């Protein structure tokens, strides 16, 4: 199917099913229950899951395959967002031209930055990309204020020209749409205490994510992908064979830059604001974390990692002391205070701490990330089954 072998086709269908059913899967708890706090099935967060999924999938093509650790990919995400918002301001509220421009802009900038940075490898490459990204951030934050609106962030206003759209006489801010289908439209399905939200913006982003995932899958299985892996394994040896590896790394860099641009454009399409902070080095670090957490060089890993980090950022950061008290209210006063005090540093504004601990544990015990964890569990289950059915063990090929 779709020129994929059987195993990949199953993986792809699995991803399709998960993304389409996400509004159900992310909302396991009834709305009125105390655990509803942990529900992630609301449009904004689901959009973030798939958009940052795209970002991480793209990053993985560079880092996972070639091993080049870029610390500046957030710059392309930010450029994509700015390009998209400018399209909303000047041309139309339709997301398609905005997304096209954001991919082009990010592609051009990654070509430029990649061309310079890829003259070096290893730590020097990382430092160069970091420098370029930080430079872009500083420019967007203050020097280029007329273009980026500085710290406030670029927003759409009633007075923008929008030459392709009909003149807006409603007095309301226009909303982003796909040929009239508004991104913010949400249908709610109420079933026995559960409220499942189906959001247009989410499904549009999800379709882009699936396309992005499919393309990355084909790249992984292509001769080009094999070449990229060869670069990761031993670039020096590759060069000795008389092969110039730079065009391949540059191509990977530009492709991942365009993925980042698409993600940035989608972010702006869901919420038409572009802030300079999304270009900061912390944002670049975040995508590195996502990829490593999920499993660098694996197909599913980056998507899982992106979901994991965004979940912590949005759910754990909102647990405040009041909620803690209500959880432990069944306990005696002193015990309640004790537990609240213990947990307090790990939730609310302390969510970074929890994330850091999880990252540490995963990197130490599951070097291959979440995917590694999944594989280990799967293997154990299979082993148990096998050993119980027949004692004969079969030798498996290495790859």
């Amino acid at each position, binding site marked *: 199917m779709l020129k994929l072998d059987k195993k990949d086709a199953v993986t792809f269908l699995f991803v399709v099913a998960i993304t389409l059913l996400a509004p159900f899967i992310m909302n396991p708890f009834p709305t009125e229950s105390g655990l509803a706090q942990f529900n992630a099935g609301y449009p904004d*967060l689901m959009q*973030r899951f798939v958009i940052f999924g795209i970002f991480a999938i793209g990053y993985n093509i560079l880092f996972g395959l070639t091993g080049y650790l870029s610390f500046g990919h957030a710059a392309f995400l930010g450029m994509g967002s700015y390009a998209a918002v400018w399209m909303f301001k000047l041309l139309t509220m339709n997301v398609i031209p905005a997304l096209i421009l954001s991919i082009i802009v990010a592609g051009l900038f990654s070509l430029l930055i990649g061309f310079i940075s890829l003259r070096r490898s290893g730590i020097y490459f990382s430092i160069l990309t970091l420098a370029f990204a930080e430079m872009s951030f500083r420019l967007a*934050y203050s020097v280029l204020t007329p273009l980026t609106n500085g710290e406030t962030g670029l927003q759409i206003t009633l007075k923008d020209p929008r030459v392709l759209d009909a003149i807006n006489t*409603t007095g309301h801010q226009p909303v982003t749409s796909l040929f009239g289908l508004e991104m913010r439209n949400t249908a709610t*399905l109420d079933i026995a205490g559960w409220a499942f939200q189906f959001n247009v913006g989410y499904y549009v982003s999800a379709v882009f994510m699936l396309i992005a995932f499919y393309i990355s899958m084909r790249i992984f299985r292509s001769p080009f992908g094999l070449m990229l892996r060869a670069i990761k394994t031993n670039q020096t040896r590759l060069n000795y064979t008389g092969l110039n590896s730079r065009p391949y790394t540059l191509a990977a860099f530009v492709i991942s830059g365009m993925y980042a641009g698409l993600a940035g454009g989608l972010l702006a399409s869901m919420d038409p604001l572009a*802030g300079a902070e999304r270009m900061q080095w912390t944002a670049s670090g975040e995508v590195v974390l996502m990829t490593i957490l999920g499993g660098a060089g694996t197909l599913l890993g980056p998507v899982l990692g992106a979901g994991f980090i965004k979940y912590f950022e949005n759910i754990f*950061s909102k647990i405040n002391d009041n909620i803690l008290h209500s959880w432990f209210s069944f306990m005696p006063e002193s015990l309640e205070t004790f537990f609240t005090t213990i947990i307090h540093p790990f939730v609310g*504004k302390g969510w970074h701490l929890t994330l850091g601990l999880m990252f540490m544990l995963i990197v130490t015990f599951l070097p291959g990330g979440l995917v590694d964890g999944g594989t280990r569990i799967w293997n154990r289950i299979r082993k148990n089954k096998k050993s119980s059915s027949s004692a004969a063990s079969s030798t498996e090929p290495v790859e």
Partner: protein
Amino acid sequence: MSKIEFTRRGIIKTSAAVGAGIAMPTLLTSPAAAYTNEPKGKTVTLGFNVPQTGAYADEGADELRAYELAVEHLNGGGDGGMMNTFSSKELKGNGILGKKVEFVTGDTQTKSDAARASAKSMIEKDNAVMITGGSSSGVAIAVQGLCQEAGVIFMAGLTHSNDTTGKDKKANGFRHFFNGYMSGAALAPVLLEMYGPDRTAYHLTADYTWGWTQQESIQQATEAIGWKTAKNVLTPLATTDFSSYVAPVLNSGADVLVLNHYGGNMINSLTAAVQFGLRAKEVNGKNFEIVVPLYSRLMAKGAGENVKGIFGSTNWHWSLQDEGSKAFVKSFGKKYGFPPSQAAHTVYCQTLLYADAAERAGTFNPCGIAESLEGFKFDGLGNGATEYRAGDHQCFKDVLVVKGKENPTSEFDVLEVVKVTPRAQVEYPVDHAMFAGGELGKCNSGA
């Protein structure tokens, strides 16, 4: 030709699937409510979106305390605070419109992106009907835009930029706090009286919307009293070491340094200026002076000794002796053990004003609330007679000019009120040049 076989199991399966398919559109209830997040149960949820990390975290923490106090008072707990002195008597301590007030909190991280994500999750996940907070004008403007699009009310917290109710004003957004223009208009006469008309000012300005508009306001106000402006230097918000910015001031020929900084920025820049010995210097035969146009107690406390004798303006101060301020300071002090800051005061007022507007409108519909807030005149919330102007959703009230106290009696008693500038002196027309370029648009209820 293929043969179709009907099995009992197959028919049950197919009919179940078809049934589900037909039922789907009827189950999917598109926005049926009259407005965004219409509260249908016994409670109503408010969203408190404040910086808990970053340069303005101190202000954010104090705002959160005041919000919790306001919710307690609205639900009938505590001593009622300023509800007893408020000129409108609609609030009975039984929640808002008989619904118990609940709240959710979020961290804006003093970043527009994070603030919007946090506000969005409050609206989409927690069904908040009103978002309030923000301790940075950039964030307030970004969140105000979001609330306008989503169809909920935004009650701005600590935001002092002219743009919040100027260039970037929105029909769903309301601001109780004063702004840069008012600071300039209130400060200039005092500066003229203290330092004379023949002065040259050097501005250090935080590089974002608040800094720009405040600097513009102060420059215009001081030039109107005869001062000259030597230079304006923009400093990034994330700066912590200001020595390289302070060093060139002495050679510029200026004899006044204006610090358009707030929070941690102001503490650091003022400390740097004092360490460089600026205040002991004499330039053009006059003592070198420093002015901090926007003051708060939290900042004054952070800067310690350095603030003595330095002039600035503030929205409210806990030492005010009117009934409203006394009641607020008393109930805040009882709950937390120290007096509230101006940030705490303004967000407490905003929460009460929102609740009162909902009571008077008889609905949580943003358009109803906006209508009852527009042109609303009230008293008893610590600032004297106040009006929410309909044209730009800005509150007009007296402005305080304050000075760092020479002999503080406690760690909280660091500012003294020099002058209460009457409202008439700080008022401006809606289409004033510094506020032009935007329009309110229409209120959006999200329906």
